[in-house]
């Protein structure tokens, strides 16, 4: 080996720098929007609304990005787990109307937590069945995946139709989560949006904790890069697939509850309606990247909210335009996951 080669071997030891640019983009977008919007209070309202929306989108999309990244499965059925989650909240809200209308904060939190638990459990179970019956026969066959997962989505949507009817259902937020909270002169932020931000941050931190501090997380991160090598080390990747798929479906269910309360109206097609947005987020973030998914969600929500205020007509295409710009800059997404 020449000295130069040896030197190259040594210098390769430096730790990789954190890629701050994608993290700074949402901040830059928010700062650029401030003078364009003009009013500081309006800007705060729009920004907090976007953060809440972004966090809910993140919760819904995070499961899909892991399924995409780890299992290489294009799951168009993901949207239906959002609808299932949202509708499962009815199983809690209907018998516990008293808790919803109670002035007690503890009961209000209790009913929200119950909705989340029931939604995640049922969506996760649906996910297990969905993986076994629909996904497993079409691993590594993308075209068939698109077709059968769409088929699965339609079947489960029709089941929701049978049990809950086709008409939109209005749901009420628990008493203490209604209305706004004054955070400054002329600045009111809706309480539920703050709750959505808190839950979104909690989900993100929990996911990062699991992915970076547990053996299961280590396996998932390795499996996203190279599932074959994970198997060659002695781990059954199929079991991991099933677990991740169920967890991703449960997260979609949680997102469904949050989205349902956000809209305060449930429709059978609500999951399908946000599916395009979720795919945009997953693609912008980089397939399989949780950090990228969070940044992508925030970016999509900020751009959508600001353009809806500044130029409503542009808002219709803002997300597609955003995806176009990001992919022209980074074709593999903001935080590409290296795959072998």
């Amino acid at each position, binding site marked *: 080996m020449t000295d130069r080669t040896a030197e190259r071997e040594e210098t390769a030891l430096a730790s*990789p720098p954190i890629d701050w640019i994608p993290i700074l983009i949402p901040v830059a977008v928010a700062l650029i929007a401030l003078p364009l919007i003009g009013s500081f209070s309006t800007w705060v309202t729009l920004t907090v609304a976007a953060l809440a929306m972004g966090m809910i989108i993140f919760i819904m999309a995070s499961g899909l990005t892991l399924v995409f990244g780890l299992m290489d499965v294009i799951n168009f059925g993901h949207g239906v787990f959002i609808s299932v989650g949202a509708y499962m909240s009815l199983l809690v809200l209907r018998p516990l109307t008293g808790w919803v209308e109670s002035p007690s904060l503890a009961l209000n939190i209790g009913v929200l937590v119950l909705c989340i638990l029931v939604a995640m459990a049922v969506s996760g179970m649906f996910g297990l069945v969905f993986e076994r019956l629909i996904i497993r026969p079409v691993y590594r066959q993308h075209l068939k995946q698109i077709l059968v997962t769409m088929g699965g989505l339609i079947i489960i949507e029709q089941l929701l139709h049978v049990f809950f009817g086709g008409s939109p259902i209005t749901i009420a937020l628990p008493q203490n989560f209604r209305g706004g909270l004054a955070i400054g002169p002329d600045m009111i932020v809706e309480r539920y949006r703050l709750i959505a931000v808190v839950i979104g941050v909690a989900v993100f931190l929990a996911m990062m904790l699991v992915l970076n501090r547990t053996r299961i997380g280590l396996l998932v991160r390795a499996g996203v890069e190279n599932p*074959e090598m994970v198997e060659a080390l002695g781990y059954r990747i199929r079991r991991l697939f099933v677990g991740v798929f169920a967890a991703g479906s449960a997260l979609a269910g949680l997102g469904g509850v949050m989205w349902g309360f956000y809209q305060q109206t449930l429709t059978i097609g609500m999951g399908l309606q946000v599916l395009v947005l979720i795919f945009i987020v997953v693609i912008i973030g980089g397939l399989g990247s949780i950090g990228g998914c969070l940044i992508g969600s925030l970016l999509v929500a900020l751009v959508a909210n600001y353009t809806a205020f500044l130029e409503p007509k542009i808002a219709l295409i803002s997300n597609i335009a955003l995806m176009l710009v990001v992919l022209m800059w980074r074709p593999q997404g903001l935080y590409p996951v290296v795959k072998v």
Partner: protein
Amino acid sequence: MPDPLLTLEGVHTHIGRYHILQGVDFEVPRGSFTVLLGRNGAGKTTTLRTIMGLWKASQGNIRFAGQDMTARPTPEIAAAGIAYIPENMSVFSGLTVRENLLLAARAGKIDATRLEWIFSLFPAMQRFFGSAAGTLSGGQKQMLAIARALIEPRDLILVDEPTKGLAPAIVANMIKAFREVKNAGATVLLVEQNFMAAKMLGDAVAVMDDGRIVHRGAMAELAADHALQHRLLGLHMDAHQ
């Protein structure tokens, strides 16, 4: 000759419509360093992947430590005690060196004595223990891939062209490390195109051509017989001498 740890009998492997292995027969004696040689496309990598169950044998028998492994899934084969170091190294770039090793340590923790031994084989590993594997150079990645196979005691280590594309000094380090692994009593099946490296390490040799074993014997015999080397390995191998 000691009893065989690994035996392949009439192994055939198809990949799509291609018939790659066409009846492979050979044995890896326990405690030996066996080298599988052959030109590009002879089926060496396919043989290793078939042993690991990454490609399924369509016919024939693979026995490891007296057990039939032919139809077993890859995780079971690995759990039975076979480590695999693929040609492309396949280190997990997004994981740190420590995490790569931790994943390979199926007990859930890294044995400190074993880690010290690995550091003695590859001193540079100690310095980049906390670095992401993706930031390492090619040689360092290869060291990590080998370390990953050594982090737990394994009965058999399959190694696919570890010296490919590496600078001569790094190859020399790697040969030194493999010698120590050999002295520690490990059984190794090495696929290699670098005949010099193969000659320095191998006890036994098998030569492949067109998906079949065309020669089996002691490495010392092949190393001493230039005519046989030329006939079996051709000019391609001479270039490495």
